[in-house]
Structures are given as C-alpha cells and as structure tokens.
C-alpha cells in the first residue's frame, strides 16, 4: 500500500526509530499501568510524563473491526481503492488499538476476530518504516 512517509515529531522519534529497526515500541505509563498510542508528550490518563516510558511488544493481535475505503482524499492511496483499514486489538496492550491495511487480505474479505501478526513496510518518500499487520494462516 503506497503511503505518505510520516515525518516524526521529536517526542515520537523513539517510536519511528524502533520501526526502522523492525521493532514495535509503545508508550507506557507506569503510574497508570496502561499503554497509549499514538505517542503523546504526556499520559492521556494522568496528564504527567513522569512515568512515561517506551515498551517493546511482539505485536500479536486480533481484528476488532474494519471499514473499506472507496473514496479517499489521500492522493497516494487513490490508485489502491477500494482498500481495507482494520482496527487491531493488541494482545499485550489491552484497550490500546492500532490500525492496519492487512496486507494480503482482499478489501471485502476482512476476517473479523482473526489473529494477526506484526510486519513492517517501507514508505517510499523517506524510507521510513511503518508497522502493518498480516492475517495469520490458520
């Protein structure tokens, strides 16, 4: 899937640097015992950055829901329409979901509830790598 290359803000850099090493790290607040994503400068729950750290996870998850995009304003993605976008619940970060285009899964055949695994894709403009999730063959 052709995508815009994300330009990291400074506070997001550990996340994107890890992606370039094909590792997924998420922000974790020790005070609240919860993950959050996307990254922010403070915890969305307690509003403090004092105990905000980066934790690496394996990234396994399950498909929670999805939509199929037929009319996107994003120029780079228009040639791929229709394409799917799925919400992934991460096994290691309860309540903290991520989005994926499920590479290899046809737009209209998203298997809700299926197990997925983490893969990485390279975006063209800058070479920045980003995470995607692929349905695990049962």
């Amino acid at each position, binding site marked *: 899937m052709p995508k*815009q290359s*994300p330009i990291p803000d400074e506070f997001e850099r550990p996340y994107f640097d890890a992606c370039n090493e094909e590792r997924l790290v998420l922000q974790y607040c020790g005070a609240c015992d919860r993950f959050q994503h996307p990254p922010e400068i403070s915890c969305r729950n307690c509003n403090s950055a004092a105990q905000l750290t980066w934790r690496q996870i394996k990234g396994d998850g399950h498909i929670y829901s999805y939509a199929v995009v*037929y009319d996107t304003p994003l120029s780079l993605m228009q040639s791929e329409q229709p394409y799917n*976008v799925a919400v992934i619940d991460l096994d290691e970060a309860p309540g903290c979901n991520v*989005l994926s285009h499920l590479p290899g899964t046809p737009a209209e055949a998203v298997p*809700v509830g299926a197990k997925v695994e983490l893969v990485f894709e390279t975006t063209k403009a800058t070479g920045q790598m980003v995470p995607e999730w692929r349905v695990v063959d049962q």
Partner: protein
Amino acid sequence: MISDQSAFDLPNPRGPFVNFETYSAPSFYRMEEDLKLWEHRGRVAAAGVGHAPTLRRWDWQAQSSVGAWSLLAIHNALEDAGISPSEVDGLTMVADTSTGAFWPEGREVPAEFLKTFKSTKDQWDGLTKLSPEWIIKNIPEFSNVKFASVASFCVSHALTAAIQAVGDGLCKVCVVVKGWSNFEGRYRHGGALAQDTVSGPRKWIHGMAGPACYPTAMQFQRYLDKYNKTHDMMAPFVVNSRKNGLLFPEGYFAQHRPDPITEDDYNNARWIAKPANLLDNDLPIHTAGAYVITTAERAKDTRHKPVYVLGHAGKGWINGQTQVAARPRGMIDSLEEIEEYCSSTAGRLLTSAGISVEDVSFENMYDGFTLFHVFHIEGLGYAGIKRGEALDFFQTDISIHGPNPVSPSGGNVGGGRSRFWMHTDSIQQIQGRAGARQISKPAEIGISGGPVPQNSSFLVWSATPG
C-alpha cells in the same frame, strides 16, 4: 486535536479596537463526571434565532462572505427576538468557519470585500475565519459588548458558553453566531493530503486511510456485527431526515435541491468508507446562523415565547483553558468506549436538567455522520430504546406525526452541514412555530446538541422554566 484557539489568538483586551473581556469557553462547559442539577435551571432562555441564506459554495460576492452572512444572521436573530443591537452585551462564537475546503490557490481576496467591511489585523478574518473583533467592528451598535468567548469545534459549544455566561451573570443579552465558509474544489482534497510526506497529528488517523468518516464507519461495522444488524436498516432514518429537512425553509436542500430521497436512493448511494455511504455524510455548505440568549426575566418581553434552558452537559477533556475530545488509549475509540461516552453524557444531561428521558418530547441530536445519531439516541435511551435497538426503532413511525419524532429538524443530512439546524428547530418546535415541521404531539421538552460522542455539548430546552 482542536484546541480552543486553533483559528486565532484571542485578542488582547488592552488592544486598540477591543473593549471587551475574552473568556475561555471551556470554563463554561459541564463535563464533570458527577454533575448535579444545573444551578441556573430555567433562568436562561433562547429569545431569537436568525439565519443567512445557503449556498453550496461561496460565490465570491462580498455580501455573501462568511463575515457578511454572519452579520446578517445576527441581524435576523435580533429582529426575531425584538431586541436592539445596542442591548447586546455578550458574544460567543466559533472562530473556525472552514468546511474542510481550502481557499483556492492564487485566488485574490475580492476588493469589494475589503472595501465593504472593516478589517482586523488578520486578512482572512471574515473570509475563512471569524473573530469577535471582526463582528464587533462591523456592527457599530455592538459597542456595549463587554463579554466575548470563542468556542472550539462546534456551535453547540458556543451556545453552551452563552447560556452558562448569562446564567453566571457575565452578560445579559448574548448573541451566538456560527458561520461556514465553503470554497470550490473537492472536500479536503489537495494541500497536505496530496504530498508524499505527512507531518503533525494528521499522520496518525487521517494519514492512515483518508476520509473523515472512516473511524466512525469502523465503529459502526462493529455495531452491525455486535447486534446482528444491517446498514440498510438506516434507510428510513435518512429518508425521514431529508423529508424533515425539506420542510425547513432555511435549509440548503429546501432552497436548492428540493427533492425527497427514497430508501433505494440511500441503499444505492456509493460508498465512501463502507459501511458509510455518500448519504451518511452531510453536505458541506456556505451559510451562517445566530441565536439570542438572555435571562428568563428579559425573555418575557421579547417577540416570541421564551424557550427555557433546563440544563446542559457534554463530553470532552478540559485542560486549563482548552478542551479537546475524550481520549482513548489507542488509535480510535472502540464502539464500547463510544457507547459509554454517549450513555454517560446523556445521563449527566438528564440529571443536569432534573428530568427523565420519558419527559423528552423530541430529539435533535447530531447526525452528520448519520451513524452518530444511532449512538447518541441509544445513549439517551430515547423512546425507551437500549443499546443495539436504534435500527429496529427506525423501522417504526419516527416521523414528525408519530409518537417519537426523530430529528424533526432533518439535521445536517436534511439541511446541509451547519450543526445548528438542530438548535433552531428545537427552539421553534417549543414555540409552536416550526411551520410544516411542527410535531403533532405537544412539544414540551427537546434535546439538541452534539457533535461527536467524544466531544460534545447538549442542551435541554423547555416550554416552561421547570
């Protein structure tokens, strides 16, 4: 995320053209978890509503610029109330007027606009955004305005700020105005979305897939799976909304496309982000609307019957002077989080007003995207429905003549995207002057507001002070 000052720095109260105090709008919202009965219940009222005409897109005429039409809407609202502009001492508004269409590249500001209206230091003021300073400079009779507040996001928030400010005694006659500027070109196409890189917060949600409706579509797909429903069950609601919208003379469809739609039209509409189709999305338009909010005492002598405010409540996260949407742990709110937001907001709203849902005669909750309406009315428990039952409810009589009128305003899908038809209709229903839209049952108490479950403010309007 949208901060409260996204479009402007608030004017310096000591500046040369400003003799009013600006207040943080979020300080007026009621978003706490443990809301009690509203302290000003029944002591604040709506006294007037006013609208400008509608256009699909601005026609580049100075007299239909968003600034000009905001002035016109204010004029009409004060006429409606029978209140002189010199009596106005408060002004609340939304600074952002954009529908999402960008100012066409290379297009110059029409000279006629610059000649006709007084400018502020921001050349886009009155064209692509609106400040209290611009309004006050262009209405000389507003010299008595001493209170101004700029709300983020939605006219529902601006109305809420006015209502609370009047209740708090910060002003006595407060005008609320919301303008929309819509330009040529495809909605949100071009600009940053046509680049091969993406910066800032946009990289996370919209940079991932595109259309604004897709996160809601994903939540709605979960809803369909969870409750074993189908998208076509939305059709009677959308058809009914257009029907009601065509009975709203101020609305875009009544003025420019006066044709009803059928369930087949809805079911055959092209997908934007399945399960959200074209008719699940509201149409961006160019228009303006305004309200006059005053004390219940002052409203007794106005032209029409006062419509009392019993309470207000909303959802969001307030941090100091700013207010943003409730924040989930992950990329998007799950359906379960959305359902919880809607239930808790509606519960706090009813508590705030000191009523139960059985007291509600009609509802005008936000609908642009239509899928939001499902979440909002289930959260409220309108007509006794529970989670997962809205689509079955839509198969019953939800018309203005039935026992449970749904969105008698027609909402934003029936009138074009203003986010204010719901408020106008609620006021007019209770005054008994909704014309062809007037609901058959007595209109005693109505609810309006929105917009989205994560970021909202709702109002309870009443024929009596309670």
